[in-house]
């Protein structure tokens, strides 16, 4: 690599948090004039790596080199001085201050001890002209769209640091057109010799703009290659940690397809969230939902359950049209949802195991039809026993339970309502192996008992094992469905990686 001296490089970086290795001897290098994609599923170590690069965390071991010289990045300020600028997903600007203020805050041109606004606004205009942005620099930043704010943040970061630019999911909240504008500017910066680190979940964008890609998985380097030399299917297998060559030895159970599909969703969608989709689910079948993070899986679940009301489409249950605008509507239709983010959307931490289990049933029964304490205890005892929920007693606050046991509590909460359709969003994420197997077994059992299930998961093997059909999502749209013997990991991954239908500009 001597012909391409790295602008910024890390070698053998390790970083542990209490009992948990976030980064395990990771190598990563950005060359001048390159856009380098950094990929990985949640918890792969991307953000930890960025935090090490920008001085938020100090590495336990390993070196950071700038122009081949080892440096130790003390803090974010120091990182900026070394030429490393970062733009986070949540734009960290001051919306109620002017564009010029935002560009120059902390380093305003001064005259006689006061900010020289005239000079500052002039410099701001000059700076933004480089980006073909013609804004009123004296008006509040909040007047402009998120996309423009993002560009202002980039302009500021480049102006201050100017060598390496780290972008953390910059396109997450941008539409297609805004993304194009952003990409045009990134290409321009690349030609100026900047090294750009681009974190994203959108694989198409990786191939559209990035020169090189590095994949992290479980804190380790999974691979790094030029995008032109890495087919998409191989990229997907790097991210998911499977190779197509590996034989599948899952215990797939074939179930007869149900004669009628009681739950029918037609053209359901919500703008900026999930493109309209059709979905039919019958009692006694498990529909798996596969796709990378940000592909629209959780968005689908939220629309189905009325957390985010759909703005198009119809729902029919047993042939009758129904309207689902709120979770209460969904529960009344016999739906249940175990959300992806257990901590913020699932458990009520300070309430006891008993109260958490009874909550959905109680909410459904109404305010004045209280489950007596005795009924609650019986219900909670039943589920604690049935699911082997490890807790000293049912009065313990649920926040003291382990992740797997919390997940079981939330499952119990919904099963207590006797749902007809249960939606599970990443039911096995972040739980230990034992609980993992129990939850898979439970999915099988519920399905055998005649429940309709929709299960979202990043674990392809898992989806293959329990799904009667698999829906594959990509770029916030349902892209296809696989059923029967075609449900093998290779097919699912091929579909996740498939080229987009529309030709990109």
């Amino acid at each position: 690599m001597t012909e391409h001296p790295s602008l910024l490089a890390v070698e053998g970086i390790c970083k542990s948090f209490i009992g948990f290795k976030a980064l395990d001897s990771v190598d990563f290098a950005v060359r001048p004039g390159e856009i380098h994609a950094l990929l990985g599923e949640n918890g792969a170590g991307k953000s930890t790596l960025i935090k090490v690069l920008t001085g938020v965390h100090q590495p336990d071991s390993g070196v950071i080199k700038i122009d081949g010289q080892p440096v130790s990045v003390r803090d974010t300020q120091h990182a900026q001085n070394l030429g490393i600028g970062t733009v986070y997903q949540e734009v960290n600007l001051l919306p109620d201050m002017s564009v010029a203020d935002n560009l120059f805050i902390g380093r305003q041109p001064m005259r006689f001890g006061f900010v020289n606004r005239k000079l500052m606004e002039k410099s701001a205009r000059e700076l933004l002209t480089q980006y073909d942005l013609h804004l009123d620099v004296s008006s509040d930043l909040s007047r402009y769209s998120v996309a423009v704010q993002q560009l202002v943040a980039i302009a500021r970061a480049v102006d201050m640091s100017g060598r390496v630019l780290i972008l953390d999911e910059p396109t997450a909240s941008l539409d297609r057109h805004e993304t194009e504008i952003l990409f045009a500017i990134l290409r321009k910066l690349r030609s100026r010799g900047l090294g750009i680190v681009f974190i994203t979940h959108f694989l198409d964008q990786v191939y559209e703009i990035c020169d090189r890609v590095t994949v992290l998985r479980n804190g380790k380097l999974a691979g790094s290659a030029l995008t032109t030399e890495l087919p998409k299917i191989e990229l997907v297998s790097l991210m998911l940690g499977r190779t197509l060559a590996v034989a599948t030895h899952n215990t797939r159970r074939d179930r007869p397809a149900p004669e009628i599909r009681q739950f029918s969703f037609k053209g359901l969608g919500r703008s900026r969230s999930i493109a309209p989709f059709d979905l039919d689910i019958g009692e006694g079948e498990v529909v798996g939902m596969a796709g990378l993070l940000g592909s629209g899986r959780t968005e689908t679940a939220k629309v189905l359950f009325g957390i985010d009301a759909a703005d198009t489409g119809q729902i029919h249950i047993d042939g009758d049209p129904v309207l689902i605008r709120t979770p209460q509507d969904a529960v009344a239709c016999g739906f249940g949802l175990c959300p992806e983010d257990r901590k913020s959307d699932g458990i009520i931490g300070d309430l006891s195991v008993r109260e958490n289990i009874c909550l959905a049933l109680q909410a459904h029964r109404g305010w004045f039809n209280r489950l007596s304490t005795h009924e609650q205890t019986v219900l909670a005892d039943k589920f604690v026993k049935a699911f082997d929920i490890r807790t000293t007693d049912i009065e313990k606050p649920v926040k003291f339970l382990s992740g797997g046991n919390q997940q079981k509590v939330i499952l119990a909460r919904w099963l207590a309502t006797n749902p007809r359709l249960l939606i599970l969003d990443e039911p096995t994420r972040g739980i230990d192996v034992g609980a993992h197997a129990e939850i898979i077994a439970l999915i099988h059992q519920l399905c055998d008992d005649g429940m309709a299930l929709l299960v979202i998961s990043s674990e392809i093997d898992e989806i293959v094992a329990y799904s009667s059909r698999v829906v594959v999502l990509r770029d916030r749209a349902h892209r296809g469905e696989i059923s029967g013997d075609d449900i093998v990991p290779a097919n699912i991954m091929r579909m996740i990686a498939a080229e987009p239908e529309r030709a990109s500009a």
Partner: protein
Amino acid sequence: MSGPRVTALTKAMPQLLTLVLILFLNYLAFPGFFDIRLQDGRLFGSLIDVLNRGAPVIILAVGMTAVIASRGVDLSVGAVMAVSGAIAATMTVAGYPLPIVILATLGVGLLCGLWNGILVAYFDLQPIVATLILMVAGRGIAQLITEGSIVTFNEPGLIFFGTGSFAGVPMPILIALLLLIVAIAVVRRTALGLLIESIGINRSASNYAGLNSKLLLLVIYAFCGFCAALAGIIIAADIRGADANNAGLWLELDAILAVVVGGTSLFGGRFSILMSALGAVIIQAMNTGILLSGFPPEYNLILKALVIIVILLAQSFSSAGGWAFVKAEFGTKGRKSQ
């Protein structure tokens, strides 16, 4: 709820000890403090006085407890007291019959609460900001109703609510007691207690569980407004007039304080209406004690602050998980070493 009574009592220990201590200090300062006598069919004495004067804050604290448990706060209750006092006084002067006056006043309190509830639940304003609006505007509205003057009245029916008594017990105490019993019964005999705690601890997760948190918040704030109107009637009846500028002034802070002293966290969640009432009694016992002892009333606020610091420190260790934390820590260590 049905949990062992012993824990409830242990949890209440800091407050109970504080109350006993304050009552004892009051006794030292004024030996006749515990004397109670019956005169003209009504109980008199310093202890009765503490409860009687404390009744408006007890009533406010009942509503405030529900609001704070939902992770909110209602700064407007003092102003709503002024508005309802103004309504009661002007309507009485205008000659409306008593039942109409009472119903209208309580209705207005309910409307004020609904307004707050709509801002908080449906427009997602932060409770402190949302209720600040009515806190400021409410006094203005009260002044408009009374046309800037203190409206006095001599309607014995209305005055009875402030100074009358039933079976020897002064009306304010009776009203506060009745409200306490009804509120505690409703909250614990229905699912409301659990659901309020649930949205206070984690509103997002409560929504996912199918709970209609918006409607529940609306009801909570409306109830708080209702309580404020009730307290407003008592205060107006007590002074036989409506003073838009001073009725209920700063009482929202006393109500919040009573709830916090009672052990409900400002971060929402677990609550006890009875403990909030105890908190209100502690605050009033301090006020009365300082007056009786002949200390300059200026000391009142400073002493209040001191007592509150002591109670809160005691709580932050015991109820907010001090012992539970220690136990959990040693518990896990023990398990790990196995």
